[in-house]
């Protein structure tokens, strides 16, 4: 122990106060465990501060402006002006409320909050360094530790984030103003979401993507409406082009790319945003001293109890591996706390939903038809286009469809893919059906409110059963 060290003890040390960490801490507190939650930056983690919540705030705000400006068909004539500063301030207000809420909830559940950067210093010991001169450090002896240090944007060579010319997603969510032009490297979900935000805020956006498709990982039929829409917004989409580097020019910057044939291109812009993915934060933890080694991608392997190879150390959220989704981390956090408390808890979920907040939104859960087939089922699908939805017509958004995948033999719902208005919400119904072991009949026989978008899920189930009313049956 170094001189001046304070040493404390705790049942459960949680490192990182993002969705995985704070949920674990609160749940452990509820289960009467002594919990210490260490956060080096801001309660709520990336999700609340620099990810999900800020991006959705900006997506909604710019969406409102865009909707208003394009609602002549509805008889609305408006020319909204976006005050990016005001918008960011509004977003910060939301973030503050949420992070403050998390802090309050932690305290109300008896969680000891510690600000600082934690690293392991032995099998049952961690050291927390406090920021700032003379702030010192403290040692915490723990029975169990939950690693929930999350992830950070990946930097690619030649594009080190500087916040001025080269932005990370985090920078892009707290802009002082919307740049006149922006090159986005990466057409994954973050790149596509932010492209929509900036395009609607008036920025000329160009996306360059190394792969030959946007939204890789989603099937073509789901990605197509999103790609169409983003191009309608005026976004230039350059697929199959790898970003090579950038240079400052008189007017801003120039981003160089190269395609598979070695042909080079350049794109002028005010700034470049790099959104090529995220990597886990495990290099700051001195994992060796607790006997852990991350895999080559930096993730910590865990079992179905969220336990790592060291039985008293748990990993939850992004550090525990794909998919990097806050709701997956929350579930893991809850399970880790319950397992530590001796509850019969396990990560036995049947499907993890995912959503892309583009326009239109994409929501997926469970298996696709191909995956179901590969898994040995005899899949049957049912589909409902939003063009046939009364409610979709009244929102002015009729792109997309709901597709439900089920096992023909048993009728069990196995998955759902939705692209269209509020797909991120609608997918929850399919997720619930999967978890409950509901059948197509169950979904079809459940009365859905009319007129709503959720009727499309019911209709898709009816369609799979061959007795849809509002669409032609398969």
């Amino acid at each position, binding site marked *: 122990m170094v001189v001046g060290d304070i040493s404390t003890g705790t049942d459960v040390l949680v490192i990182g106060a993002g969705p995985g960490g704070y949920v674990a801490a609160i749940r452990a507190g509820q289960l009467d465990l002594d919990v210490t939650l260490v956060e080096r930056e801001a309660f709520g983690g990336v999700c609340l501060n620099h990810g999900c919540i800020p991006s959705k705030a900006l997506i909604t705000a710019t969406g409102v402006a865009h909707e208003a400006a394009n609602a002549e068909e509805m008889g609305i004539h408006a020319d909204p002006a976006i005050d990016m500063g005001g918008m960011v301030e509004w977003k910060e207000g939301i973030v503050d409320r949420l992070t403050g809420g998390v802090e309050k909830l932690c305290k109300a559940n008896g969680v000891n909050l510690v600000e600082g950067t934690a690293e392991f210093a032995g099998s049952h010991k961690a050291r927390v360094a406090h920021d700032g001169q003379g702030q010192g450090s403290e040692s915490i002896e723990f029975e169990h530790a939950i690693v929930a240090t999350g992830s950070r944007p990946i930097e690619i060579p030649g594009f080190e984030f500087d916040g001025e010319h080269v932005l990370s997603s985090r920078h892009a969510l707290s802009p002082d103003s919307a740049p006149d032009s922006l090159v986005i490297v990466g057409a994954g979900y973050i790149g596509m979401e932010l492209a929509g935000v900036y395009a609607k805020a008036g920025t000329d956006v160009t996306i360059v993507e190394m792969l030959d498709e946007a939204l890789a990982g989603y099937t073509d039929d789901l990605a197509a409406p999103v790609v169409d829409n983003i191009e309608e917004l005026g976004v230039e989409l350059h697929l199959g082009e790898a970003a090579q580097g950038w240079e400052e020019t008189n007017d801003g910057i120039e981003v160089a790319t190269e395609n598979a044939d070695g042909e080079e291109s350049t794109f002028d812009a005010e700034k470049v945003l790099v959104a090529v993915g995220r990597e886990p934060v495990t290099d700051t933890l001195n994992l060796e001293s607790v006997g852990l080694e991350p895999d080559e991608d930096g993730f910590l392997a865990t079992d179905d109890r969220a336990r790592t190879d060291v*039985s008293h150390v748990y990993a939850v959220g992004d550090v525990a591996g794909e998919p990097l989704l806050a709701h997956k981390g929350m579930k893991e956090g809850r399970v880790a706390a319950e397992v530590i408390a001796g509850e019969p808890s396990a990560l036995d979920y049947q499907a993890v939903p995912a959503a892309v907040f583009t326009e239109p939104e994409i929501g997926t859960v469970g298996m696709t038809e191909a995956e179901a087939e590969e898994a040995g089922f005899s899949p049957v699908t049912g589909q409902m286009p939003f063009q046939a939805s009364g409610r979709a017509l009244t929102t002015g958004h009729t792109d997309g469809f709901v597709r439900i995948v089920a096992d023909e033999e048993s009728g069990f719902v196995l998955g759902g893919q939705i692209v269209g208005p509020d797909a991120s919400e609608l997918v929850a119904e399919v997720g619930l059906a999967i978890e409950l072991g509901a059948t197509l009949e169950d979904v079809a026989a459940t009365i859905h409110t009319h007129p709503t978008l959720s009727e499309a899920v019911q209709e898709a189930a009816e369609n799979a059963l061959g007795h849809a009313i509002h669409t032609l049956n398969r």
Partner: protein
Amino acid sequence: MVREFKLPDVGEGVAEGEIVRWLVEPGDEVSEDQPVAEVETDKAVVEVPSPVDGSVKELLAEEGEVVPVGDVIITFNVEGEEPAEEEESGPEAAEPSSGEGKREPTKVEGRPAVTKADAGEDRRAAGTEDEEAPTASKRVFAPPNVRRLARELGVDVASVEGSGPGGRISEGDVRSAAEGDRDGAESEESAGSEEGPSGLDEELSSAVSSQEGDSQPPEAADRERTLAAPATRRLAEEQGVDLNAVPTDETRDGEAFVTPEAVREYTEARRAAPTDAAEATAETETGPREREEREPYRGIRRTIGRQMAQSKYTAPHVTHHDTAEVERLVETRGELKAIAEERGVRLTYMPFVMKAVVAALKQHPYLNSSLDEESEEVVVKNYYDVGIAVATDAGLMVPVVRDVDEKGVLQLASEVNELAQKARERSISREEMQGGTFTITNFGAIGGEFATPIINHPEVAILGLGELDERPIAEDGEVRAAHTLPLSLSIDHRIVDGAVAAEFTNTLIEYLENPNLLLLE
């Protein structure tokens, strides 16, 4: 056609049996009811008869293998029947079809749990592991609250047959599965001392059938690299298992990942079905003795262990010690011994003790009772069936002498000798060891004075006899030598208090010290 024969329920409430010896070989002609195998259950060795006239096609279990009731152990070629199922193999072959199953107890057919064939059909829905459907096997069609309940009750939800639409698993299904398992286990534990309740067989069968899948010899995996948590590695080491050989469907980062459960399953399965290689090694090893040796804990030893543990953890034991001065008993027995011998009976002290015990029990009836925990009633027995613990090579057995109060000393002597002999030869039947009301254990035959006998649950008392020997007695300031018999009486303190135990022992001592009093009984 090929007729499959499953290990039948060879005794009341028996869940599994060890194939001690095959009496036939493939190719042998057999006739109906001809014994084909000797099977040891938890108490007895029984012969399993052939159900058909025909020839032996294949023996499906090794000698020494423990086989759950309901597993196919042998197949026969039977002439003159349709060869329809000749080619069948795999899970379906184990399915009890209406024609095939007629020789089996119907309770096996009627069981509610998953059979192998069911599991095959439901493999996608029920999530059993199967190579053909690796991803589907991960799906369990049960809601989260049911999955949690299954974890709480220690039920593998993937092995539960759902009763809902499409086989969806409900809370009730999981509870039934858990009940089935528990009932099965409990019945097995108590089978040695209690008549099974009605319907027991059915429940047992369900417990057994859910284990069917485990009975096959495990196929060892052969990987170069296996990921596992340190605790799992330690477990594997303890069990002497190569992690690379443990089958698993789980992966981490593309590498096979083995859990402690997988190691345990593999170990258990391997023990139940020793591989040829392992046996060969065991037979040919001639080197120095291992530092440690592992022997399977099963059969009679395991039954005794379970019975003891259940008794010890169910009944709060208190042991009361005292000593009887038995000079007159020694004389009496000495006098009667010669007469008994003339009549061809070896007379020990045991029949006298039994008579004295029954006399004392009549005065203290709570020691001849049991506790019906379910109905919360003390069942006081007005009959006196006394169990006599007998040490055998296989372990402790407790034959029961019926109606001790109605029998004379010589008859008791004769019965005890006969039952003890049968126990040692292991030809004793289960019935002859069931339904005792009080037990006597004579550890003094080997030596020693006092001990803490474990009650033969659900009885409430057991009397331990130390060695009858000459010991010093202090009387009126003088020490003299006299024959004494040390007594150790363990009681279930829920039913019997210390004072009652002492009173019972005083009465017992009175009879032992004055055997003439037994004439009045």
